[in-house]
């Protein structure tokens, strides 16, 4: 796994959108004032006749997107995830999802790595909100290269509604340029049999580093990049539960309702194994530098490795004593 340098995932979104727009004249982009800030400026500059400015009115943007989709267009609407997923939730539910329309919603500014803007602008509940909606596909790619591919796939391969999450801060760009990106099919980034780290978005690279830290201590961690939150790759999760016996979920999102919950829903139904969660512990974010915030909320490689170690201990204890009653308390905080 080589870090080719840092790029924001929103850059990948902008590139993918432009590429798909150049290929298909039915692709439209809807702007809600923060066009450049959410990666839509490339499209708006190159294809102004298919860029529709609607101002700061997210509910209307989603409704208009639904109308365009009903007429066979492929509308892409991007704004900060907090506004896309939350402000326009009812419009997404009824006008888009109930009508099962191919609308691509870009949710920018994912997670605490948004930094100084603080809690109002850090999307930490969007995956949970979007994944409960029937018909919705939810994507959370891990770097700029993959976000470009995910954007193209969302526009060209999907038939129904898609929520695609990406971030603002420049982060390591490391996935293969010619990778196979398939919606719903996770990527195995590193094999191991002691435990599995399933990560999404910005935390995938940190999970890879965490696995290296664990390896130096003799622990072999498997790392899975779960770029599709819905439909979740059940096969990879069941295989990981079966072969490694412990799963750590890592996301820049609330622990409640996001990737970890989606993984747990599969694990508890198919093959229960101990799990641990790295993510926001049911609280709002705050201002600070992205690095400081990731550290404060336990989203560094070191913190993920530490949580992984404790999970492995719990797995071994459970194997020895068969579910000791206090085992959950030790590792549940994440």
């Amino acid at each position, binding site marked *: 796994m080589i870090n080719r340098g840092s790029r924001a995932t929103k850059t990948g979104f902008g590139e993918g959108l432009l590429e798909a727009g150049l290929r298909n004249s039915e692709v439209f982009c809807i702007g809600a004032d923060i066009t450049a800030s959410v990666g839509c400026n490339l499209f708006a500059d190159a294809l102004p006749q298919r860029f529709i400015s609607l*101002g700061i*009115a997210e509910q*209307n943007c989603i409704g*208009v997107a639904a*109308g365009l989709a*009903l007429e066979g267009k492929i509308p892409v609407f991007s704004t900060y995830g907090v506004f896309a997923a939350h402000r326009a939730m009812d419009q997404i*539910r009824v006008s888009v999802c*109930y009508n*099962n329309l191919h609308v691509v919603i870009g949710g920018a500014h994912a997670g605490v790595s948004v930094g100084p803007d603080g809690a109002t602008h850090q999307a930490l509940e969007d995956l949970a909100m979007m994944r409960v909606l029937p018909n919705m596909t939810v994507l959370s790619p891990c770097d700029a290269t993959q976000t470009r591919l995910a954007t193209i796939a969302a526009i060209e391969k999907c038939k129904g509604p898609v929520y695609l999450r990406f971030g603002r801060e420049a982060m390591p760009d490391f996935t293969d340029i010619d990778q196979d990106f398939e919606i719903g099919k996770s990527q195995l980034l590193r094999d191991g049999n002691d435990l599995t780290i399933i990560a999404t978005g910005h935390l995938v690279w940190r999970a890879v580093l965490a696995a290296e830290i664990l390896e130096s201590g003799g622990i072999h961690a498997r790392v899975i990049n779960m770029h599709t939150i819905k439909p979740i790759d059940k096969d990879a999760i069941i295989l990981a539960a079966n072969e490694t016996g412990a799963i750590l979920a890592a996301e820049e999102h609330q622990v409640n309702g996001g990737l970890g919950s989606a993984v747990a829903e599969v694990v508890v139904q198919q093959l229960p194994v101990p799990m641990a969660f790295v993510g926001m512990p049911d609280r709002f974010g705050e201002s600070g530098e992205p690095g400081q915030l990731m550290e404060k909320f336990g989203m560094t490689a070191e913190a993920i490795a530490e949580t992984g170690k404790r999970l492995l201990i719990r797995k071994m204890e459970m194997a020895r004593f068969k579910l000791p009653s206090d085992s959950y308390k030790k590792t549940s905080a994440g």
Partner: protein
Amino acid sequence: MQPWQTSDPITLHEIANEIRKSVISSLSEAKSGHLGGSLGLADIFTALYFSRLVHDPGNPAWPNRDRVILSIGHVAPVLYATLAHSGYFPLEELKTLRKLGSRLQGHPGRDHGLPGLELSAGSLGQGLSVAVGMAIAAKMDHKNHKIYCIHGDGELQEGSIWEAAMSASHHMLDNLIAIVDRNGLQIDGKTEDVMKLEPLADKWRSFGWEVIQCDGNDMEQILMAFTQAGITQNRPVVIIAKTIMGKGIRSIEGDYRWHGKVPSEEQREEFFREVEGVEKS
């Protein structure tokens, strides 16, 4: 114009009353639903489908058809009755309203495959945005069809309506015609007591819309409003149609308690006679 379409107000008035009777029957079968608004809108729906719309019930997905978006999903019974009387599906099916497995959902749902239904809707304040999207698409494709969007007056209390209104005039959507069912009533009482809407025409005008006002239960006035709306250029049109909730049944006209009520079996017969009485008068 289809051969069965007409601009004769008397014929249209008779069709409207047939639609009213279908609304009463289907709601009485369903035992729940919204009668008042559905009856008040019967004349407007009749004028649309039986006179104004360019459409083909035999080919519901015809690309050049005019689109009708029902933003107030709760008056689905009048939409269903009008679609059935227009020939989109058999009248018999109106009996299935709100029942398990029916294509006639309590609020319109496209996933059940009802011909002629453009949009699943029911959460107030969303239809106009969708209509704006459809109108923009028509402009982009240089198509001449119109998009009609039907609203309640209480619904205009939703902020999203005004986001959509702003965008429609900004994008000069003269292919978009909004119709407001101005019956002055909502569930809690009079709109002006619950949340004041007046001066309503001025609100729309200040948002850049052409405003046409008419009596929404007077066929000639409705037809005239549509004609006027059709020739407006460079901006969207709103027809504020003053209607009477429960129109056609004197004993419930203007009574907001009939917004979400349905007739019992005995009342159904009585209401039928009242509608027929109106027909004769």
